[in-house]
């Protein structure tokens, strides 16, 4: 039988341990709140300023020197087109690279070096990609300050994110599925196309969206390649010109994007432009949220079909 003194000592230890638990969870909640509250306050402030400016005209008007007439038509169309080029180039490249590294690449020092460098690439400041793109795409390849250049620049920027996400998603597939497929006599490509890609697509999609959400708000690399601030016309519509050459006129068109439009408006002397910037910021956040929402929905749909 235990002595009362021992029990008291144990109780004291438990109380102390629980107190630590409490302290830590309070600390954790505070840290969480700091991040979330900052965003919420910023977002609400932006919404209060910007939402009254949102109207049909705001979305269908070009920028103007008069704040009340200015709109974001060229900016949101530009953003969507640039994102289209980014997605079309970064997703196939990134997924292919990820699959290769996981399924095909021999395990040797070369592969190790490549792997380390991909992680490093993810940490490079975006302005560096802008400078690279200025030299490579704008001048060397002669793409100029076009939608193509911007799309490819942002594609480079998010490529590491997509590669890493693809590899994580593939690794999450149970080893037994690999082995089962090979045991039935499937080739590597059959295994990849019938099992690996379908099962990892939900995870890959998450990575793609995280990457795209980063790209949509990027300003520095786009300014570096020389995106324009005043542009009161739209590119020729994609795939609508005379085929085959005319269909791709749009990728060489000059453009502007949402963050640049906002940046331009915040540096104006008239206070009314600040409201426009807030409204554009609200739309941009909403675009990002919509993209994330779409990702969650698609991921849910894809997961439903996985039977293991």
């Amino acid at each position, binding site marked *: 039988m235990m002595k009362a003194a021992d029990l008291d000592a144990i109780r004291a230890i438990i109380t102390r341990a629980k107190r630590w638990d409490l302290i830590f969870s309070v600390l954790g909640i505070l840290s969480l709140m700091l991040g979330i509250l900052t965003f919420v306050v910023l977002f609400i402030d932006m919404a209060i300023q910007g939402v009254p400016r949102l109207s049909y005209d705001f979305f269908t008007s070009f920028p103007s020197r008069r704040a009340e007439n200015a709109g974001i038509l060229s900016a949101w169309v530009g953003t969507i087109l640039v994102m289209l080029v980014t997605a079309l180039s970064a997703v196939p490249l990134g997924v292919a690279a990820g699959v290769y590294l996981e399924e095909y690449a021999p395990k040797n020092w070369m592969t190790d070096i490549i792997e380390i460098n991909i992680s490093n690439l993810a940490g490079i400041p975006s302005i560096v990609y802008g400078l690279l793109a200025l030299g490579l795409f704008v001048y060397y390849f002669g793409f100029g300050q076009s939608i193509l250049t911007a799309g490819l620049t942002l594609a480079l920027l998010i490529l590491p994110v997509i590669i890493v996400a693809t590899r994580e998603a593939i690794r999450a597939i149970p080893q037994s599925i690999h082995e089962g497929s090979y045991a039935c006599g499937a080739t590597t490509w059959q295994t990849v196309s019938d099992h690996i890609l379908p099962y990892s697509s939900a995870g890959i999609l998450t990575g793609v969206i995280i990457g795209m959400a980063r790209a949509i708000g990027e300003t520095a690399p786009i300014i570096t390649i020389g995106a*324009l*601030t*005043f542009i*009161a016309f739209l590119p020729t519509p994609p795939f*609508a010109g005379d085929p085959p050459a005319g269909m791709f006129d749009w990728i060489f068109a*000059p453009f502007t994007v949402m963050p640049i439009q906002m940046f331009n408006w*915040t540096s*104006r*002397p008239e206070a009314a432009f600040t409201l426009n910037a807030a409204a554009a910021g609200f739309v941009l956040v909403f675009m990002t949220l919509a993209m994330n929402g779409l990702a969650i929905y698609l991921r849910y749909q894809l997961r439903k079909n996985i039977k293991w």
Partner: protein
Amino acid sequence: MKSMKIAAVVAGVFAATAVHAQALIKIDGSSTVFPVTEAVAEDFQKAKKGSVRVTVGISGTGGGFKKFCRGEIDISDASRPILAKEMEECAKAGIKYVELPVAFDALTVVVNPKNTWIKQLTVAELKMMWEPGAQGKITKWNQINPAWPDAPLKLFGPGADSGTFDYFTEAINGKAKSSRGDFTASEDDNVLVQGVSRDNNALGFFGFAYYDENKGKLKAVPIVNPKGKAVTPSIDAVMAGEYEPLARPIFIYVSAKSMDKPEVKEFVEFYLKEGGKLAKEVKYVPLGAADYKHALENFSKKKTGTAFGGVAEVGVKVADLLKRNPKE
């Protein structure tokens, strides 16, 4: 289904504005000139019913000239005349150009509205505050004028990359870019507005448009001109030629090659005809009517080169500039 609907809406927007291959005018350069050029571009495109496309970028005067001398753009916005080094680059690439003054900007020296002691400032007083030798030494108001309070002097100004900074230092300290370094610098003039409006002991300078929009938060300091008269910056004072030496002309440079394109020619003519009215609307100071006419003449005669010969000058009359024989 949902995504198809969105695609249909996007396609609709495109289709509504779809037009045939159009003429394109590319402009880039100074952020100071941007509001004027933007206003002209906006109205020009409206006047042409969208048959000509105009793009206006902001890369700074220096960045604009770099693109201009590589032949990437048709028109360069400049808040200072082209420099000798840039002239060389253009000459190497075989780019000739016509220099056209389009408006004035009045550099405005501002203090906090609670500053009761300043009634006016002379160039000499400004120099005492801003010259390189003042760094770390002139830190209080009473060091400049004993009648002023024993309070810290807090200075705000644009960053060293801006043409505004170049012109101010040239006009006050006698040499472009020569200034004390210990002041609060920002490329964003709104930051300077905030800084001066929150500090009773602050003094700063920037373009007139930023003062005009923030009149309630700032006080403009009258500057004593070379004739000894203290002049408060205003559109009228600059037009009368009294706000010296801080009124500066701003320019556009038109590439001679682009002048052969009818749309560029038409745009520049539109600029010189409507520019004065539009400049006033965006709080810049128009040139005199005769000056615009003279500039238009120089343009039609294709008088290529710069009236400055690669050296910055302060306090030249635009009428005299336009009469000079430009150098290449």
